[in-house]
């Protein structure tokens, strides 16, 4: 189904994202990150970080997102045809455990294009900006969500 345009008019409120040691450790271990800066406080401090360092893709965890603050569930996409096409991160400050971030989601671009096998594909880019307690920018994440024209087989 086409993009529900009413989502473009909507403002999504700021949300809290508390960065926890346990979640950083769990996330690092699942990916097999062997670097102790993610799992061992002493090693993280010896490397110059204030606390356990989050792995580079950590803010793409979904724990901080819900339908109140995230446009994704309101795009009108068929969940069976929804793909994560691209993911981008900008790093401004080290993301470490104990930080209390404020995040905000916004749709920054949309486009439609004819699919290879006919039908329209929709592309939406959602940007999430995370700032720390002092209001300084920590990270920006941008995800491109695609609704494919037909049920996808192997891409």
């Amino acid at each position, binding site marked *: 189904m086409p993009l529900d345009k009413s989502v473009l008019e909507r403002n999504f409120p700021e949300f809290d994202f508390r960065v926890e040691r346990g979640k950083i450790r769990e996330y690092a271990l699942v990916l*097999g990150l062997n670097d102790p800066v993610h799992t061992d406080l002493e090693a993280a401090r010896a490397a110059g970080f204030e606390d356990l360092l989050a792995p580079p893709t950590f803010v793409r*965890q979904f724990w901080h997102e819900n339908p109140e603050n995230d446009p994704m569930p309101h795009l009108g996409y068929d969940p069976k045809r929804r793909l994560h096409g691209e993911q*981008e*991160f900008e790093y401004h400050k080290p993301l470490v455990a104990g930080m209390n971030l404020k995040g905000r989601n916004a749709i920054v671009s949309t486009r439609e294009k004819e699919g290879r096998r006919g039908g329209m594909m929709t592309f939406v880019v959602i940007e999430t900006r995370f700032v720390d307690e002092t209001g300084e920018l920590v990270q920006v994440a941008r995800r491109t969500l695609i609704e494919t024209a037909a049920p996808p087989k192997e891409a």
Partner: protein
Amino acid sequence: MTTTLEYATWEELTEGTEHELTVGPITRTDLVRYAGASGDFNPNHHDEIYAIRAGFDKPFAHGMLQGGYLARLLSEWLGPGSFKNMKLRFNALTWPGDMVICKAKVVRRYEEAGERLVEIEANATNQRGDVLIKATATAAPRS
């Protein structure tokens, strides 16, 4: 006592320098653990019946699981916390049983506004040679 990793220095990272990491075979347990760690419970990644009804042969990996492996390669090579940006483009799906072969290469080494930077091109492929992800990143490794 934990072992600290050795990261490459900016001086060592001349254009054309390569690095790689192979992960796998990917198991369904990896998918479930990633769902739990990330909070992404899209049923396509763990529910067989749901995935089949959606037109897939079986559950497949989260794009960000493979993306996380690629980021792991870059982080353990260039140093954690050294990144300026990273962009991942998802190209093909990873199925349980597949290998994820991550390769990265320095395409540019330069100085800008007093910072020593490298630009990286990377990709992840499976054992059949299909490109799973294409990635670019900019980092400021230690000197």
